[in-house]
């Protein structure tokens, strides 16, 4: 077991899954010769050849659309969209096709497809390289959404995503790619989709976060008796764990990187307001980006929820 970063953990997962199952095929822009712009697919072309590590044209609809056909035919495609902001070109394929093929054909054709994409701000990239619109995908029945928060969860979730019989949007927090190292087992292991994990146990307040916000939330939780939940999957999501925690603590702060309105935090808050309201001591608070157009890189640090903002909200919640 070695301490590796998330890029390496994902790369390990891809190597191992491709090794074990000849149906697994990786495809996308620059995934082959270049090894992916973040190097997540490095070495796959050399090891598995061009038929299983497919450099595609610059064609998001084509990539996802073809991957749907490949998945229906019996392969297990892992398609990469270079940045989440470019996935919209394939939105029709995702919303009208990938998510519906099973239902529309009553199970005759299915879509065991993984769409990997780096998401989120924090690396001072160019415009449209920092989006965090996971809520779109969580609103589409028939899609699963997974978001690792570090190397360990990345490797285990990716394995589950690849072997899931349904399409999974797999969001990789760009900011964390090389930021943190964790012990990651050499051998394969799976973290089930749809389940959250307790990143920390506590009794006074429930904090919910996912992806790149988990780390900041953990830091902000310092000094509080906080139950911190790393959601890991947004669809399906582990409402049970969140509700259980809130029933225990009576307080909730949800942290998301996306703009506030209609983000996934709203779903969590609404669920709490529906199913655990009797246990609440005060309001369900959300920390989120502002409802403004994502700024260029010079302002991104002011845009993304930071540790201070999260801490302030925790304090506010603790006042009840």
């Amino acid at each position, binding site marked *: 077991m070695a301490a590796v970063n998330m890029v390496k953990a994902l790369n390990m997962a891809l190597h191992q899954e491709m090794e074990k199952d000849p149906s697994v095929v990786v495809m996308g822009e620059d995934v082959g010769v270049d090894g992916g712009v973040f190097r997540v697919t490095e070495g796959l072309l050399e090891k598995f050849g061009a038929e299983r590590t497919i450099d595609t044209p610059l*064609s998001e609809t084509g990539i996802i*659309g073809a991957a749907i*056909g*490949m998945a229906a*035919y019996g392969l297990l*495609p892992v398609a990469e969209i270079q940045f989440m902001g470019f996935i919209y070109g394939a939105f*029709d394929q995702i919303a009208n*096709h990938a998510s519906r093929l099973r239902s529309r054909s009553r199970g005759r054709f*299915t879509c065991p497809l993984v769409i990997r994409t780096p998401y989120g701000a924090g690396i001072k990239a160019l415009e449209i390289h920092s989006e965090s619109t996971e809520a779109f995908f969580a609103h589409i029945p028939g899609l699963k959404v997974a978001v690792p928060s570090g190397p360990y969860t990345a490797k285990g979730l990716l394995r589950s995503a690849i072997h899931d019989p349904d399409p999974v949007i797999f969001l990789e927090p760009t900011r964390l790619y090389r930021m943190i190292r964790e012990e990651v087992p050499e051998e394969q292991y799976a973290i089930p989709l749809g389940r959250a994990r307790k990143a920390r146990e506590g009794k006074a307040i429930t904090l919910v976060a996912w992806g790149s916000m988990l780390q900041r939330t953990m830091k902000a939780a310092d000094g509080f008796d906080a139950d911190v939940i790393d959601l890991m999957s947004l669809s*399906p999501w582990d409402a049970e764990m969140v509700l259980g925690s809130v029933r225990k603590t009576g307080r909730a702060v949800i942290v998301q990187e996306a703009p506030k309105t209609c983000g996934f935090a709203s779903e969590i808050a609404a669920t709490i307001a529906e199913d655990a309201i009797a246990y609440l001591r005060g309001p369900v608070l959300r920390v989120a980006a502002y409802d403004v157009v994502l700024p260029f890189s010079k302002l991104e640090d002011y845009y993304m929820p930071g540790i201070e903002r999260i801490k302030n909200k925790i304090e506010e919640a603790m006042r009840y």
Partner: protein
Amino acid sequence: MPEKRIESFDVKRLEILDEEGSVDKTLMPALSGEEIKSIYEMMLLSRAFDERALSLQREGRLGTYASIRGQEAAQVASAFAAEKSDWIFPSFRETGVQIALGYPIYMLFQYWSGDERGMKCPDGLNVFPICVPVGTHLPHAVGAAIAMKIRKEKKAAIAYFGDGATSKGDFHEAFNLAGVFSAPAVFICQNNQYAISVPLSRQTASSTLAQKAIAYGFTGLQVDGNDVFAVYKAAREAMEKAKQGGGPSFIECFTYRLADHTTADDSTRYRPVEEVEKWRGRDPVKRLRLYMEKEGLFSEEFQRHLEEKVQKTIEEAFRKMEEIGHPPLSGMFAYTFKKPSPMEAQQMKEFLSDGGG
């Protein structure tokens, strides 16, 4: 501006059977008399389905329906060229294709009555569910074709679409991928001259659709889409080429939709009756019959026999659909994911307890 010529391209058109039922023998594909009769039968069956569907829709027993009248040659003859092992990706106006492939007719009735069970293609056939968003299924065909190539299986993926679909980005990205990966894909466009009310001249400034393949480095061919033999020959050769590793092909079937766009449409709002009349004269069924008469493949008795058979098939299919009846209300659940999520399971329980709605 005098410049060097670095490329040049021709666009061709294939015609074999003329309106009088005569054929160009040098071009005639290898089809036995029985095969020709079988194509004819499928055309009649498709047309009978079409007529029945239109009348059922008027009675409120089917939902919106898209007629294929006038396009039977393009559909039946091209599907006749396919093998069972091929994968077929239809749009919403492909009844003739589905029928010629042996897709169960009662399931087509189910589909058009708003029941997804009609899209559960039987095993042994590989017909994708009908694609409603125009042109968005073309990438799926290319993906299946790439998978066939990876798996080294000698099959073709065959996608059907209309002239309107050629304006969509999905068309472009699919064609481009097919070219790059030399995928065993056959693209069959039924250019029926209209996309609802929009005539071809408003759809694109290119003089043919076939020439669009030039952009992707493979061949586009226009065929007389009301000519079963031209359609069959072009489709067959394209499919064989695909299976031999020759890559994709594009076939533009130049044809016409004789009916309204769908039962929700009134085509007199946007096209002259004379135009429709002119094309009615080019009826592909009639044209094949003229040929069969000339060749001694036709008799009044044969026609009567077929008509009865076809009517019976349609009636039985419709009865079967009715017997099966309304889909179970719980049919809404259980196909969103292979294993229902806790949320879905919970909602299904609520639904079953309060009856939904």
